[in-house]
């Protein structure tokens, strides 16, 4: 089937797969520019659509806006953390919400990083890579019960 072929081709591509949850076309364009061709980037608009993707085929990294047309980035973080196999999925919130309360709520919901818009493209690209590396360190330690 065509869908199976697409998944097979996607898996042959060794680039990291980043799922981006944001409904704004201009923000999507910026994120796409910032990540360039180094990643396989997939965009979705809402929390439930993102959760469906995560449950079917866990990406390497999730980047989500907090304010979404359907659901929220925070509820998405919470749902992902209880989703089988997604415990170590690196999650970055990318949002214009910059208050201390919002940042604390983001981490408490399960996010690993919190980046405030407007997007600094170089900073964002570097932080995506750093976050992936950090989570790679955490996984074996958590599995050992550290």
């Amino acid at each position, binding site marked *: 089937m065509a869908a199976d072929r697409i998944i097979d081709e996607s898996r042959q591509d060794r680039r990291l797969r980043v799922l981006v949850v944001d409904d704004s076309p201009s923000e999507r364009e910026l994120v796409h520019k910032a990540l360039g061709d180094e990643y396989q980037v997939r965009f979705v608009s809402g929390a439930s659509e993102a959760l469906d993707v995560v449950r079917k085929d866990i990406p390497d990294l999730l980047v989500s806006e907090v304010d979404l047309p359907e659901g929220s980035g925070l509820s998405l973080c919470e749902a992902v953390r209880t989703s089988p196999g997604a415990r170590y999925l690196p999650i970055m919130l990318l949002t214009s919400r*910059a208050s*201390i309360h919002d*940042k*604390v709520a983001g*981490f408490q919901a399960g996010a*690993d*990083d*919190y*980046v*405030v818009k*407007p997007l*600094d493209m*170089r*900073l964002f*690209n*570097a*932080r995506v*890579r*750093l976050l*992936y*590396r*950090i989570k*790679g*360190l*955490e996984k074996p*330690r958590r599995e050992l019960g550290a």
Partner: protein
Amino acid sequence: MAGQVVEGTNDGISAVAPPKKVLVIDDNHTIVELIRHAVQMHGKFNVIVAYDGVQGLEQFYSEHPDCVIVDVKMPRMDGYQVVRCIRGDSASAHTPLIILSAMVEEDDQLTGLLSGVDEYLAKPFKPSVLCATLDRVMQITPEERERRMTQLASGAQDQ
């Protein structure tokens, strides 16, 4: 008390610059007092304190310190999260940051550095080393910090 810094001005009259501020975030009150004493004896900084990560962020955004010394294991929000909050906002991304922690495994230190800290110091600490580190991180330019972050990030491709 922190010392006063005398700087030259264009008209040749010396002006007293306000001392720099260091924010210390640690849930161990004894450690906080040891750090406060060491930094104040150094004579270049005033010290403000917080006892958990959330209180630390509140102090950070209200007091705008010139440098932060933060522990890792703390209630409400850990030191790595505090560092990522500060580095993830371009308004504060270039603040000098030091982790001072009893967590000294290689992966702990690497997590701190990847999170964006400038230096990772181990407890127990020597006051002279802490103060020398403070002086050093205050000299790091935004360009140097960005270069280092990019270098650390590029290591991720090797995994």
